[in-house]
Structures are given as C-alpha cells and as structure tokens.
C-alpha cells in the first residue's frame, strides 16, 4: 500500500534542515497563507481536519485550542512537547533532525491561531543533536525575519525558545513540562485547572506534541478536507510509527491511519528478524498493553481499532518481540523504567511502582509464591486511577497486560513451596 507522506515528504534530502532548502521545497508558504487568515478560522480548519494529538492521548487538536479563553487579558503560550521519553518512541527526534523548519512552521501556525507571542520547544535533554538542529533553525529564522518582531511583515510578533530538558520522563506530561519550564522540579499538577486555562505562569497554555504541530503546514496548504480524506473517519491523517525490537528494518515510518498492523510488521518492518515467529508487540509505547501475536489478526493501526483490540495507539512506539522472548523478563525490564521515572509525589505511584517491580523481579528469579500473582493484581488495582497524573495508569499497563496474556510464563517460574510460608518479609 502506498502511504501519504505528509511529515516525512522531505526526509530524504540531506540539506532539508537548512532554511533555504526548506523554502525551496515550498516551506514557509503555509505560515504566509495562515497569517492572512483570521486566527479563529485556522482553529476551525484544524478542527475540521480531524487532527488528533500525537503525544499519546489522541485528543482532537482544534478542540483543545478552542478551550483557550480569548479574553483573559493574560499572555497565551504555545509549548511544543518534544520530551519524547516513552520507551519505544523516537519519531519526534527524527522530525527535528530531518526537518526542523517543518517543526518551527507548525509552531508559528499554532501560535498565530492561538494568539501566542512566546512559544517554546521543550526537547528532552539527551537529544543533543536535535537540540542543536532546532537551535540552528531558530537562529536562521530570526536572521531572516521569520521570528521576532513583525514576522513575515505581518505585524505579528513571535519569539521561539529552544529549551533543553534534563532527563526526566515525567516532564513529557504536560503539567510536569510546565512546572519544569517554570524552573521547578517537573512534578505534574492536579487537573483541573487545565493548562488551556491556567498553564505556564498561570496563563492560558496549549501543549502540543511535535508531530501534531508538524502536521499543520500540510493541513493549511492542502485544506482540512484533504487531510480528512486520508486515514479513517475517526482517525484521519497519517501517523509516524517508531518500529523497534526483533524486526529486520527498524526505523520511523509514516503510514495512513487504519493500515493493517500485521502488514506493517511484514512490509515496513521487514518481518520478524532471524526468520523467527512473532510472539508479541506493544503498538504504542511501553505504557500501552502488550498484544500477543494471535490477537493481532484484523487489527489496524488507528485509535479505534487498537482500542477495540484491548490496547492503544499511544505514541506509536511499536516494539516487536520474537518467540524467544522471556515475557517475565521483558515485563520486569519495563517495570524498572517506571520505578525509576516516578516523580515521587503520589504514594500509590512512588511506592506501588517499587513494589510491583520487586515482585516481578522476584518472580523472574524463580522465588515468587503463587499468591504473589494475586497480590500483584491487587496492588495494580490500588494504583490505577488513584494518582495525580496518568503515569500511575501507565505504570500498571505492562504488568496487567503481561499477566493477562502470559500468565502461564509467570506461573512456570513460581516456587510453589513458598505459599505456605508467606510472611512479612517476602519481598
């Protein structure tokens, strides 16, 4: 199947990161067009396109913009979320490396639509090279008068700052990002109030994912209905999938939403490596439920089909596991990530993550008691929905889904002699 190339159209040009090259391939036309339109019309256009947030939650972008009060008298901020730390996800990095001006143009369009005169791209700290690329793009844009005062002679002022994170997954959560950008620990805030009403410095703030914003120039250039014509009715457009794990051709692929998951593995990913069989895949980053191979038939890569199958599209971090994978081991690996990244504010998350990890590790070592499986189930139920931010729900996705689909592998590792002596010191 031939897919549309909206975000990756110019990835193969090695000079694409330069402003002149970007412009020679009709870059910065969409912002010129947008600046001639009423901001409210742009929001309507984005709503009509059906574009949904690519950061994980899939919330309709135009609808989110509509929540920003127009009469608060406060400045409005647009934040580009390039914290990209969800295990298995590396698409925003590649967008910034291969086409930084596309990312910038998206930010310009959104800023104009929202009335934001200051905008920031928050890039995870480990992404040194993408940060350098984005900073160079910003510098070039300032030099050309595309940023700063009176951009493109439109009378609109816009400053964009490249901000480097420092190694905390939780700063990808939008309120954690805002706290971090204010110069604090990146600990998420209780919602409501939502950032659209009270975000950065208490002002209305829109946080959008890098990929979401990068789709805007195409939508403005080609129109909402052209975007809607791609993908499925409820999941319009294209999506970047970051494919990794036991496959022949790992990489970032842009596919039309609604594409068959198994075809994606076979065609784009080049099939399972070493001639082995597919065992499982995690289609949307480590925070979405794992799917066993036998449940993938007929499943498509779009928000609805994946949800129906019992998992989620998430960030599109597509991790493939072959039939040699020890699922208890894989699960323990992910639980360690969540223990490490909990920001520590909520007891169920901070303590729960640690308990879950140590129990899975114990099972992995062959020292688990049969009742541990029940305790695990119980503990995860105490975490889900009981925390300030959705990290709590994310951290139980691996253990709950691995247990559901691969219970046999967990059971095989149990030490059945242990239940009788279960006591206080068994973790």
């Amino acid at each position, binding site marked *: 199947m031939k*897919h549309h190339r909206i975000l990756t159209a110019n990835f193969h040009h090695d000079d694409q990161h330069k402003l002149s090259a970007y412009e020679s391939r009709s870059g910065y036309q969409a912002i010129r067009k947008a600046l001639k339109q009423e901001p409210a019309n742009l929001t309507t256009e984005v709503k009509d396109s059906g574009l949904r947030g690519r950061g994980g939650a899939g919330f309709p972008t135009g609808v989110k913009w509509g929540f920003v009060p127009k009469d608060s008298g406060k400045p409005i901020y647009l934040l580009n979320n390039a914290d990209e730390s969800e295990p298995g996800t590396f698409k925003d990095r590649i967008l910034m490396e291969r086409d930084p001006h596309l990312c910038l143009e998206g930010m310009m369009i959104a800023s104009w639509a929202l009335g934001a005169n200051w905008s920031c791209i928050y890039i995870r700290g480990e992404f040194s090279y993408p940060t350098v690329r984005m900073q160079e793009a910003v510098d070039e844009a300032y030099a050309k008068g595309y940023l700063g005062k009176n951009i493109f002679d439109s009378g609109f002022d816009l400053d964009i700052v490249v901000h*480097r994170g420092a190694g905390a997954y939780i700063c990808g959560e939008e309120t954690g990002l805002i706290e971090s950008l*204010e110069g604090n620990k990146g600990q998420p805030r209780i919602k409501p109030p939502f950032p659209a009403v009270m975000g950065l410095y208490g002002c209305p703030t829109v946080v959008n994912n890098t990929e979401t914003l990068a789709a805007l120039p195409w939508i403005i250039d080609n129109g909402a209905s052209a975007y809607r014509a791609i993908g499925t009715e409820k999941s319009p457009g294209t999506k970047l999938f970051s494919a990794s794990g036991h496959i022949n051709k790992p990489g970032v692929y842009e596919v039309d939403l609604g594409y068959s998951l198994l075809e994606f593995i076979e065609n784009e990913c080049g099939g399972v490596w070493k001639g082995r069989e597919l065992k499982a895949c995690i289609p949307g980053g480590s925070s979405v439920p794992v799917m066993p191979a036998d449940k993938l038939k007929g499943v498509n890569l779009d928000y609805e089909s994946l949800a129906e199958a019992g998992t989620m599209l998430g960030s599109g971090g597509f991790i493939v596991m072959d039939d040699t994978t020890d699922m208890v081991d894989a699960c323990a690996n992910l639980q360690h990530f969540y223990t490490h990244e909990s920001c520590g504010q909520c007891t169920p998350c901070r303590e729960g993550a640690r308990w879950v990890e140590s129990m899975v590790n114990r099972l992995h070592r062959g020292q688990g008691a049969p009742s541990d499986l029940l305790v695990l189930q119980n503990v995860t139920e105490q975490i889900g929905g009981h925390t300030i931010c959705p990290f709590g729900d994310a951290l139980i996705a691996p253990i709950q889904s691995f247990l559901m689909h691969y219970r046999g592998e967990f059971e095989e590792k149990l030490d059945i002699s242990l239940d009788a002596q279960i006591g206080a010191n068994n973790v």
Partner: protein
Amino acid sequence: MQNGQHQSGQGQNGQGQEAVEFGPELETKVAEIISRYPKKKSAIMPALYMAQEHIGWLTDAAIEWVAEKVEESPAHVRSVATFYTMYYKKPVGQYHLQICRTLSCMLCGARDLTAYIKDRLTVDAQVITEDGLWSFEEVECLGSCGSAPMIQINDVFFENLSVESLGSLMDKIAKEKPDLRYSAKKETLGEGMPEAPRSQAWNAEMVKFNKS
C-alpha cells in the same frame, strides 16, 4: 579549563569545592539566555547546564552562581538540580558512558554491552576509573530504539552497537580524546566520529517503500 571535557574528580581533593571563575564569556552568555524567557526562574535549567559544562559537575559554587543569576535561593536551585538525572551531583569520568537498558535495547543485546563495559573498566556504576577517563551507568530509553543497542557518551549517541564495535569505539576515544560535549556542537557535535552518524533511526528504506 582548556577544551574542558567533563572533568574528572581526580586531583580535586574529593569533593572539589574550591572557588571557580566563570569568566566574562559565560556571564554574557547566561545573561543572553535569561533574557529569552518571560521569567528569570525559567532559565535555571540552561544555567545549570552551563555551570556543569564549565566545572564538570554541580559543585556548591555552581549552584550558587546559578542562584545568583536567576535570583532564586541556592536551596531552590539545588532542589531542581537533584530532580533531574542529567545534572551531576558528583564528578563523572571524562567520558561518561550511558548504556540504554530499556526494552528495545535489551531485546537487541544491551546486556552484552553492559557486561563488556563492566569487564573492561572493572569499576562499579558511577565510579570513575583510576585514570579519570571513564565512568558508566545504565540509563532508561534514550529515544533511539530503532538503532538498538545504543549508548550515549557525554552528549553524543552511538548506535547499532555490538561488543566489537563498542570495544573499538572506546579504544578510539581513549586514544583521540574527542570533545563529545553539547557545547562542542553546532554541526560538529561528534564530528570526526564516523561511529556517530546522524539519524540512524531514520530508515532510508522507508523512502523506497513509500514510493513503490
């Protein structure tokens, strides 16, 4: 510090808390960075990075310098510095190896890389080798899962590694001592290191696929 890499703790009398000169260049640069933000406090993170690159890690003097620049208390600045893993609260080796241990890298052989490094350096994680050259730690997903297994050395990614290629990479670094810091950057970040090619995670095959 000439061509200052992450300076090791060697010769710093353990905690190395002596006074540090930041110099006019950094003073100008930090003022420019602060002016980019609507509020000074927002510049704590970039200012911490500057101080860290200058000294090698965040000493008391570094924290106080940042606090003074952004007009916040040293206690607040320290609370920020301790929250984020990329701020070093103690010295690291001149080359700090950060091995990604998360799922995609693990599936593709990250454990072999860790075992190799432990074996070669014979120090524990976060401990500097006697010559001051190396330290290592295991870190979580670095956003390069399509080029697994991979490691980050100072600020540069090295991808699609095997024990053999990691071994020769380390030999080369020990010999040539390249500057792998963020500030060495612009187009040259990791330059002269063909082992650190750009955008490995971007699959050239994709173009062919989507054209067919």
